[in-house]
């Protein structure tokens, strides 16, 4: 058996697995009857539907020939990992270290994801964005964002 469309094969697999997972989860909740549907009623219908659709997508990806084979292609690990790390870091640092430290940290880490990294440009960007977000979010809109460490 050969995969005719890689993209469809993996998306079908994703739908199938997610559908089965949600269906398994739905069994924890009461189904009720059609006349009195319980909390598990709607999720179960949906997840079974999703699993069926996923299976159909997988099936067609194995049977119908597609020009070029729709390859998934290489995965951009570098930006993917850096962006995810940067967002997580932001979430972890902001409540503890405040805006003035977290924003430059985020900008420096994120800028790393691009192929051009020049310290001067990144530094200017950090300063400008820190001041800007303080002006707009803290001063202007009065949001409760910690500004200084430990505050």
């Amino acid at each position: 058996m050969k995969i005719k469309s890689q993209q469809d094969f993996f998306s079908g697999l994703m739908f199938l697995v997610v559908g089965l997972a949600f269906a398994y989860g739905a069994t924890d909740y009461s189904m009720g009857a059609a006349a009195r549907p319980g909390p598990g009623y709607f999720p179960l219908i949906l997840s079974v539907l999703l699993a069926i659709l996923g299976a159909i997508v997988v099936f067609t990806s194995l049977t119908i020939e597609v020009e070029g084979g729709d390859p998934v292609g290489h995965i951009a690990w570098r930006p993917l990992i850096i962006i995810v790390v940067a967002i997580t870091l932001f979430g972890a640092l902001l409540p503890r270290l405040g805006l003035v430290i977290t924003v430059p940290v985020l900008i420096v880490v994120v800028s790393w994801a691009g192929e051009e990294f020049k310290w001067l440009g990144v530094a200017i960007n950090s300063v400008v964005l820190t001041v800007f977000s303080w002006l707009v979010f803290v001063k202007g809109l009065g949001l409760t964002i910690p500004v200084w460490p430990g505050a």
Partner: protein
Amino acid sequence: MDLINNLAMGFGVAFTLNNLMYAFFGCVLGTLIGVLPGLGPVATIAMLLPSIYSLDATPALIMLAGIYYGAQYGGSTTAILINVPGESSSVVTAIDGYQMARQGRAGAALAAAGMGSFFAGCVGTIIIAAFAPPLTELAFKFGPAEYFSLMVLGLIGAVVLASGSLIKAISMIILGLLLAQINTDVISGVPRYSELPFTNINFPELTDGIGFVVIAMGLFGFGEIIANLGQPAEHREVFTKEVKGLWPTRQDFKEAWPAVLRGTALGSLLGVLPGGGALLASFAAYTVEKKIAGPNGRFGKGDIRGVAGPESANNAGAQTSFIPMLTLGIPPNAVMALMVGAMTIKGIQPGPQVMASNPQLFWGLIASMWVGNAMLVILNLPMIGIWIKLLTVPYRFLFPAITLFCCIGTYTLNNNNFDVYMTAIFAVVGYLFYKLKCEPAPLLLGFILGPMMEENLRRALLLSRGDWSTFATRPLSAGLLIASALMIVVVLLPSIKSKREEAFQEAD
């Protein structure tokens, strides 16, 4: 002429210096909020609620209304410029708007959105004034079965919207509906899917459901950034350097006008239905425009009709969604719910009696909607030049800035870093969808409509004692379902035809 008398009284109220000032303030604030992705009108109005204690009811509501449609407007600006829909109703604007921006026609897209919105706003205002009483009669006829069927129609509309495979788009909708099931069940109060399977790890934050903004940021904002950075600089899908004029051409006008008219009509109609409002209106308008453009057009690749239609529709819908709120006291969306809250703070019981007991407030608010729309156009058309300058900023400065605003936006949703972590997860999911060519827009719509759909389904079944045929026997509901079935058939037709042609070619 009651209508003219009433409107005259309304404009008398709206044109006092004080009220004009509050309308202006609301519009500016709303635009700002709309432009900053992640910070929605709901959060802002919620934050401002305490401050309206010191205001009179009329200026307070005028200001809140200004924030509401200002945000609608600002949300479409980011949708067009950086492909991050600031509001759920501008998700479809991003599709063609962003393509236009890439081709250097951001100015035309922004102008079309602005003028279309203004026209729709004017019409919407007149419609509220003229038809508020009779239209509420129609809304009374809607039971849970009708709401459910209406949402099915809306979701099918979203499928038509996806340009890729039909079955994958339907799967994405269901995935969205399922993600919306992560919450606390409204009827039984049972928390669902907030525990990691096979462990005892529990996430109490998930009992409120995942935020719409979290998913939108992760899938659209971050997913797009990662995908862009993953490509070598010369292949990167950013913008052409040459910006072709700030204004729409004569040809653009010719194409956009009919779309604006259609969008306005559709939006005014759908806005009245509680639950749909601006969101359904923009999706439906996009679907209609796509059908009219036909399969051979450049729809989805930067067609001005794909911006003008939905933008007019969502503004008209935003306008007419005041009807159920003002006349029935039923808030059709979260913003309106807060407006109802604001009215009760000021000691006004929302409902049919408002028109009679507070005519100054009722008609003043309606007139100020028109004033607010006029202000938005005056405010925003000169700004187009400034927004376009934004696009000439090199991408290596732009993407850290977008990342930052998205992060701050998600953090301030609940002042909680849990939402930020969730966004990181959805960034990965968004990139996965991009790699697998699964369009995220249908998922988002499914996610938004999920809770309402479940509630109405269960209510309808409860009322019919478990009889599913209730959806087919109630005439309005049956009509809506037939319309959805027809839409699927229409979508399938060309692909059936092309499949057939393929088969014939192979036979040769």
